[in-house]
């Protein structure tokens, strides 16, 4: 500042401060998101029909970790450790998976409207999960539903990919229309499975269609943990190559990216993450659309922040959503999927209008 004041004649713009600011935005956002996540986790653990004060939550956690603190009474301990905390962990895993899957999918398709829910991957995975319930499959024990959701999700991703691309690119209209068709087909399959299911299975299936974390248990957390962690660990390794893919397929190849391989790996990762989320929480849409988009507006399009940042942001959004779903209409509980769709759909509509404007129409 002083340098420019002393030498008004020099034409050098005072810009060097700019890149620092720009590079510090992701760091700042990460810190804010982490803080929000911690706060929401503590709130979610304490709030509910059985209120547990913040001190007691922290005390019980410290007690179990062997760091002093104190245990709660039998009911409190049970509510915290068997009901609330599995739900908190599940919200974290599902939200992170959905956010990350959205960011990856948008990168692979080169299209900001791609999202597992919108283009039918979630519905496909749900069809697999519902099918495994309706047909009473149990060949992999605890992991059967996850496995079926993954397989069906993978088939759906591949189908959407094959159907919506032409000449090396994905047009918005084709992608959305393909999503409509895939959603319709998956919906029909789910309907068919419901037709064959008995009433106990039907109530279980209904839960899938609405999307909820209400049935969170530790075994469920364990059932999705490997899928979600594997996907979340692999995704950031491909961030730089996703940046290059934004240039188009050929330019990315010219810059040394093995595009085919990149695409196969990332489609697998997206299927893995979506299946993990759908298998335990049912269809929760728009998280993967909203989170990466907001982060892109705040911190730029670079995938090195966007991919892990979307995982973090997804966890925050889902934990907040679940907290709201549990507490807004207490003692009743809103389905989480309904809540995210309620807020996500108008946003999707706005995004559609905006994309249309920047492209000057769909033709």
């Amino acid at each position: 500042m002083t340098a420019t004041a002393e030498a008004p004649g020099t034409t050098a713009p005072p810009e060097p401060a700019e890149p620092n600011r720009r590079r510090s935005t992701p760091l700042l956002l990460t810190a804010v998101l982490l803080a929000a996540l911690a706060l929401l986790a503590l709130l979610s653990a304490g709030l509910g029909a059985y209120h547990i004060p913040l001190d007691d939550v922290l005390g019980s956690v410290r007690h179990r970790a062997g760091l002093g603190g104190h245990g709660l009474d039998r009911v409190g301990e049970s509510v915290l450790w068997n009901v609330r905390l599995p739900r908190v962990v599940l919200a974290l895993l599902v939200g992170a998976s959905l956010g990350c899957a959205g960011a990856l999918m948008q990168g692979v398709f080169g299209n900001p409207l791609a999202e597992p829910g919108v283009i039918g991957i979630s519905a496909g995975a749900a069809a697999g999960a519902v099918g495994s319930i309706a047909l009473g499959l149990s060949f992999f024990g605890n992991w059967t539903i996850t496995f079926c959701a993954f397989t069906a999700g993978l088939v759906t991703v591949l189908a959407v990919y094959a159907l919506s691309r032409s000449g090396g690119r994905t047009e918005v209209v084709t992608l959305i229309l393909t999503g409509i068709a895939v959603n319709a087909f998956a919906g029909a399959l789910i309907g068919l499975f419901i037709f064959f299911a008995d009433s106990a299975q039907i109530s279980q299936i209904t839960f899938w269609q609405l999307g909820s974390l209400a049935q969170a248990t530790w075994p469920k957390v364990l059932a999705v943990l490997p899928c979600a962690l594997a996907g979340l660990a692999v995704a950031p390794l491909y961030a730089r190559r996703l940046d290059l893919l934004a240039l188009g397929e050929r330019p990315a190849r010219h810059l040394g990216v093995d595009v085919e391989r990149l695409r196969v790996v990332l489609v697998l990762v997206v299927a893995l993450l979506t299946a993990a989320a759908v298998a335990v929480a049912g269809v929760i849409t728009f998280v993967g659309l909203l989170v990466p988009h907001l982060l892109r507006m705040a911190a730029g399009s670079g995938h090195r922040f966007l991919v892990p940042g979307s995982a973090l942001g997804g966890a925050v959004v889902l934990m907040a959503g679940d907290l709201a779903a549990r507490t807004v209409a207490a003692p009743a509980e809103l389905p989480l999927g309904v809540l995210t769709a309620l807020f996500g759909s108008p946003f999707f509509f706005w995004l559609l209008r905006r994309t249309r404007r920047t492209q000057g129409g769909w033709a």
Partner: protein
Amino acid sequence: MNALKSLFSARGPRELPVPPGPGHPALDARALSVWLGGRAVLDGVGLRVRTGEVVALVGPNGAGKSTLLAALAGDAAAVSGTVWIDGRPLADWPAPELALRRAVLPQQAALSFPFPVEEVVWMGRAPWAGTVREEEDDTVVAEAMAATGVAGFARRPFDALSGGERARVALARVLAQRAPVLLLDEPTAALDLRHQERVLRICRERARAGDAVVVVLHDLGLAAAYADRIAVLHEGRLAAEGPPREVLTEELVGRVYRQPVDVLAHPRTGTPVVVPRRDPRPGRDLRAVVLDRAVTEGT
């Protein structure tokens, strides 16, 4: 973590290209044929490009210029023929190693997400990540941006730029890649007069520095002024190839473009200038115009 990274990364240890002496064949295409839609778009084309030279590909629309460039880049699959680059067939190079050896400027610059200009140019350095030449990144990017004149809007988002600005950013990215073989598909198409000259001066500089440059051009004057050799494509075949003065004859250009032309020697430099042969414009001559104006102004 590093072990995990290498497991999922395509980047093994790579062989860095060694700059060969001048006049060494950097890119060698032999008997290339490419079929598209049941038709031979390229039919037995051979082209050898040496280090230190600029070769211009010219020809009428649909002659196969872009297809030849795509085949040289490894994008268009040749039904027969081989492209050799740095002593090995193109198909034998893994993508990460090929990226150290040749850079390609596509005809249209597109970007799916709004990256700032600076980051787009930085993408050109991606092939060098993890090699010793990663240290040059800062200087190379700054040079590329200065050479193409995009430093002034380095922080603007790419999608807020005009067509010509985008084209220059794309060129800066390709220059930042610092590959010894440069393949440029119509780099001057969206540019004004000054930037057209600038781009071809850059081509010349890169050739002087020891690179081999292949550039698709529409403007025969530009090709004549800046290229060491011109390859004229006509209906998928090489109609002529050689120094501009030998290739750009009235007969050949007239036949290939089906447009009669006059080829003149530039009075100062002597390079050939190609002008379409035009009939004198019908209508009033200059004297009539002057007389007309005198009458209307009442003098």
